[in-house]
């Protein structure tokens, strides 16, 4: 589904990432783990086109998308959520999801201003679909609330609903469990699995090891900007290099 090939990133003189290459298999859940500062979020930013890599290429279904801006990548089915939740705080929960349906609608500035009949039809249909996505993540009753007023956990769910609305092929989640309590994390695990079962490939950056080990099909470990290991959760748990990186030298 997604292939990263020889990704490197430098900020000025600082090397944030080097020689990162791995694949994310279709309809799987891939976890990207590593200590703080390993470069996980930077990797997501490069994958989604928020900034360009210094070297290497990003391939989506075999197509090189390294030069595309984020909005084009989103249209190709590559969508993400953010570590600190980037909701549109001054819009309602429903409207947030409707923005997620932006790529599936066409009405331009004139059709919208003049309320052309097809624009009204489109509007009705995405309103319904947005409600269904809210239902899917379980926050349908909050549709009319200002997104900025949601609790962290609900905001996370909204962000997932909004991302799913794009009908992604690949969903990148940046620390989806951060800031959630254990009950919420359990529900999140279920939700992520059900997303995968709908045929959406998931890649996530996460610190919560219980969650990662429970839901991921394969893992990639980064340390200090480099690939440390790759494999199934079981293999990673038994990998001495990983244990050292997390616990330090003995």
């Amino acid at each position: 589904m997604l292939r990263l090939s020889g990704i490197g990133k430098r900020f000025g003189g600082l090397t944030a990432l080097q020689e990162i290459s791995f694949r994310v298999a279709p309809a799987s859940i891939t976890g990207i783990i590593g200590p703080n500062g390993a470069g996980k979020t930077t990797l997501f930013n490069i994958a989604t086109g928020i900034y360009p890599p210094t070297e290497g290429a990003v391939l989506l279904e075999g197509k090189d998308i390294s030069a595309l801006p984020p909005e084009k990548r989103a249209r190709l089915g590559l969508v993400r959520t953010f570590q600190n939740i980037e909701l549109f705080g001054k819009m309602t929960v429903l409207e947030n999801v409707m923005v997620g349906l932006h790529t599936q609608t066409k009405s331009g500035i004139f059709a919208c201003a003049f309320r052309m009949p097809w624009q009204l039809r489109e509007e009705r249909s995405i309103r319904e679909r947005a409600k269904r996505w809210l239902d899917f993540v379980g926050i349908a009753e909050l549709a009319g609330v200002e997104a900025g007023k949601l609790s962290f956990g609900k905001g996370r769910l909204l962000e997932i609903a909004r991302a799913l609305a794009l009908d992604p092929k690949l969903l990148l989640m940046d620390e989806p469990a951060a800031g959630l309590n254990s009950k919420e994390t359990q529900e999140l695990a279920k939700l992520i699995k059900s997303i995968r079962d709908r045929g959406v490939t998931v890649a996530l950056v996460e610190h919560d090891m219980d969650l990662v080990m429970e839901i991921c099909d394969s893992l990639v470990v980064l340390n200090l900007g480099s690939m440390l290991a790759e494999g199934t959760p079981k293999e990673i748990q038994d990998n001495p290099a990983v244990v050292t990186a997390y616990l330090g030298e003995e």
Partner: protein
Amino acid sequence: MEFFNQITQYAISGLSTGAIYALIGLSFAIIFNSTGIINFAQGEFVMLGGVLAIVSITALHLPMPAAVAVAVVGTTAVGLAFERLAIRPLKNATPLSLIIVTIGASILIRGLVMLIWGKDTKALPPFSGDTPIEVAGATILPQHLWIFAVTLLVIVASRLFFHHTITGKAMRACSFNRRAASLVGIGVGRMVLLSFLISSALGALAGVIIAPLTMTAYDVGVMLGLKGFCAAIMGGMGSGFGTVLGGLILGVLESLGAGLISSGYKDAIAFFILLLILFVRPQGLFKKGETDRV
């Protein structure tokens, strides 16, 4: 020869206004570097400097050095009040509200000056007479020399301050990374106030030394401020030589353009340069491009 003399003449007057733009540019950069704010009221500090000096001389009959002191101190007081009353209450403000507030301050200051001292254009007497000095076929006024001297002095002093004093270094630390600076115990709030202090004093000084040459009125601040900003942009918003060079280049281009093409479009020249640089090299003329971190 005639033509050559003319060019020299334009260059000299261009360099002197350019030096003023450089000073104003530096005063922009100082606030920008410690707060991330482009202070739209910066030009008003320049105007205030000139106006206060004139008022001190004509109404209060102070001698020139005292008038200069009154102008600089008075403007600095306004700058500090501005920071306290308008900038500080806006903690965590968006750039948009900061822009709006500084614009508000700028027209407030302009309006008050107009109400108190009227709309007339006034001139400050030159610091040391107006007997022209002949140099290479062109004439230089003593005031030009004053401008060059003060600009040079300010550049040297700011270099010393920012690189060789603890406070100056602390201010630079704030500009690189505010959070890190506050973690090592630098009072960021105090540094912001200090940057407004230095910046408004510098603006006032620029306003005072230019006033004998160009006349001053309540509404000269807009143009001077914008051109100073243009200089700062050319120098990449740094507080060093780039801005000074930017100011001088701008001054000379403007003076040549006004002399050789059309004086009506003089002000437009600065803005064409400004737009060109913003579009093509927003990092300034003399800096290498860098990837910004999101």
